[in-house]
């Protein structure tokens, strides 16, 4: 697995933390006047990774961790040793630590800030979405197992800031469900989702609302995703009206405020010109039916980016559009992502398109991640037989090129009762006994190139 890590809060937060001694920190260097910060990362007993910077001056720190929603936490221990974690209370000495406190395995030290790995915007661990099947009375009584549609099954990944992460696979592979689950539009059945350092797996709708300003979605069909009775202005302004704007007051605390009509219009106009619907005045009071498919999708993109979110799911945003317009919308989204540093999950069945725009591609099959790697490497040197099949099935606009491989036969099996072992073994040309018996784990074969296949383990 990839190392999971999350870092929230900035150094100014650390300075404002209450002072409380932490035992056994690495010895202070006397000559250092500057407040030196140490970055620590450790894994707690329950497997969560906690990460943060420790200020020596204050000898206290604020750490945040995956799965542990900390406002304040202190750790006790030595770098490189097993230590203990103390949450929401200052630790004076070792005796202050109550029994049963979370213990962390190892403290890793990074002195230089630049060496600190960029923290993921989102990290997903063993995420599951199973839809239970409705059963009749007799089935309930006589059959032991509950039947589930395993739409997403044990998927893990990290999403870094500004990254375009593509999910590829056939229909029925669970791409869209995964997109909806990470947005919490659908409640996951298992696993964890961390968004901006916070565990959002079990948050209620009310708790999710302030986070919603940071997450948006662009749907596939611009003919259905825009309300036909709303004007373009209303459509783009809706998130602004619902969420308001965040401001800092004098004491440095953020609060939300409703936006004034003029302010809203300014923001909408600015956004419309960013999606190249110019002049924006001409489009403000139009209705969706007065626009072409490409223009509508621009409106959908504008609506998603108007809140300046840090995370967007784009669910097949161009598959309904004409080829000549497709490239424009794709380029527009790539530019906006670059500009706003938002991270985006780009769901697409078109692996050729994903190759050109995504940083990384994950290939899904029946709810499982089959391969994960840098976009270009994954398409040019696919490792998993399924990825190879996907890539070779893409038609090439060259009448003289002949397919090198035969098209694999069959279609994606039912996710209710997926094949045993490796889910792809029923269609895999290289399937052997082990594939039927044993499910392959997703392992790192090359650097940052993961594959779940027995051929490579």
């Amino acid at each position, binding site marked *: 697995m990839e190392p999971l890590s999350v870092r929230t809060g900035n150094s100014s937060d650390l300075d404002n933390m209450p002072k409380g001694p932490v035992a056994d920190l690495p010895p202070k260097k006397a000559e250092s006047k500057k407040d030196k910060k140490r970055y620590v990362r450790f894994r707690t007993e329950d497997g969560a990774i906690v990460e943060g910077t420790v200020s020596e001056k204050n000898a206290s720190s604020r750490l945040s961790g995956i799965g542990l929603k900390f406002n304040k936490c202190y750790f006790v221990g030595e770098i490189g040793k097993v230590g203990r974690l103390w949450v929401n209370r200052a630790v004076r000495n070792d005796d202050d630590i109550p029994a049963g406190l979370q213990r962390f395995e190892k403290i890793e030290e990074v002195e230089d800030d630049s060496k600190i790995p960029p923290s993921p915007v989102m990290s997903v661990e063993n995420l599951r979405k199973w839809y239970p099947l409705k059963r009749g009375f007799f089935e309930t009584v006589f059959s032991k197992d509950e039947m589930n549609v395993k739409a997403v099954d044990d998927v893990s990944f990290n999403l870094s800031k500004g990254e375009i992460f593509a999910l590829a696979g*056939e*229909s029925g592979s669970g791409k869209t469900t995964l997109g909806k689950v990470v947005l919490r539009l659908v409640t996951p059945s298992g696993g964890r989702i961390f968004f901006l350092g916070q565990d959002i797996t079990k948050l209620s709708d009310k708790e999710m609302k302030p986070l919603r300003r940071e997450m948006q979605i662009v749907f596939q069909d611009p003919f259905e995703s825009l309300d036909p009775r709303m004007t373009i202005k209303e459509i783009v302004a809706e998130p602004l009206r619902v969420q308001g704007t965040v401001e800092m007051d004098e004491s440095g605390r953020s609060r939300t405020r409703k936006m004034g009509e003029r302010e809203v219009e300014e923001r909408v106009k600015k956004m419309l010109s960013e999606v190249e619907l110019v002049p924006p005045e001409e489009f403000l009071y139009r209705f969706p039916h007065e626009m*072409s498919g*490409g223009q509508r999708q621009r409106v959908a993109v504008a609506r998603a980016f108007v809140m300046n979110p840090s995370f967007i799911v784009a669910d097949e945003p161009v598959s309904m559009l*004409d*080829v*000549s*317009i*497709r*490239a*424009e919308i*794709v*380029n527009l989204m*790539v530019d906006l992502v670059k500009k706003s540093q938002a991270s985006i999950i780009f769901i697409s*069945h*078109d*692996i*050729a*398109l994903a*190759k*050109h*725009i995504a940083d990384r591609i994950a290939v899904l099959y029946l709810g499982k991640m089959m391969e994960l790697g840098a*976009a*270009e490497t994954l*398409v040019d040197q696919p490792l998993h037989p399924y990825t190879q*099949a*996907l*890539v*070779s*099935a*893409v*038609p*090439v*606009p*060259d*009448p*003289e090129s002949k*397919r090198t491989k035969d*098209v*694999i*036969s069959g*279609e*994606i099996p039912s996710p209710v009762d997926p094949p045993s072992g490796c889910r792809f073994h029923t269609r895999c040309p290289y399937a052997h006994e082990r594939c039927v018996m044993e499910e392959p784990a997703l392992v790192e074969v090359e650097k940052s190139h993961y594959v779940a296949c027995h051929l490579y383990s």
Partner: protein
Amino acid sequence: MALLEVQGLTTHYRILRGWVRAVENISFTVEQGEALGIAGESGSGKSTVALSLLRILPQGGYIRKGKITFQGIDLTSLPENEMRKIRWKGISIVFQGAMNAMNPVYKVGDQIAEAIKLHEKGVTEADVKERVAKLLETVGIEPSRANNYPHEFSGGMRQRALIAMALAANPVMLIGDEPGTALDVIVQAQTLKLLRDLKDRLGLAMILISHDLSIIAETCEKVAIMYAGKIVEYGDAVSIFKNPLHPYTQGLIKAFPSIKGARVRLSSIPGQPPDLLHPPPACRFNPRCPYVMDICKKEEPLLEDHEKGHSVACHLY
């Protein structure tokens, strides 16, 4: 003499505000055993061409000019009862949207059988059954599945069954209207492979309509690129894809993300397809063309041979 010869076909749709010039003065030929691909954006008139050939235009659609000569007979002037004999037996069509093209309340086998019974008088029930089984086998479906309803078929199988149905009356020519769209890449590749095999095995002439140039490149020997109701480039597939002449064709080919080669920023054709009620004067592509000249707005370019078997309608040449 070519199997199908279309000359100056012009099909318009009558609506309250006037005539929508969907297809304007197009000509092409298809030989026995040859596959022609018609490519273009939505609204370029590709499907209208197909519907015109079979004379199954929706209400308001009229063939206003032109000749369609199929096996030496002009289809445009043929009375309706004669035309019915051409459909299925002469030319048959596989429609877009495999999901909805079949009647959900009849068994797949019965739907295929219906086509046979209607077009061949005096076939026995046993014969029909055997034919259906054979047809399903041809397209790679277990003959026993004839007793299933369409909802019991997967998307790819439904598409195959539709192809089987189109072949029911042993047609000479098969028209595929976007046969791969709405299917997954792998199933799409399977369907295209099937069509190619059928073409070679049965010696079918084929017209493949698609917005996806790469599908056409893989399946067809001849290509017609349509833009706003007109053919802008026409010729043999290799020379069109190797050396696209019309700026629109060049744009379309570049707009395709290629699975091979390095990562590039995709290029697009700026602007939108024109309103066919009031198409732009002269060259219809002039508002979007990067090489537009004065003459493009005044005079309509004609489809002329640039080299043997490759013609283009553009003032650049």
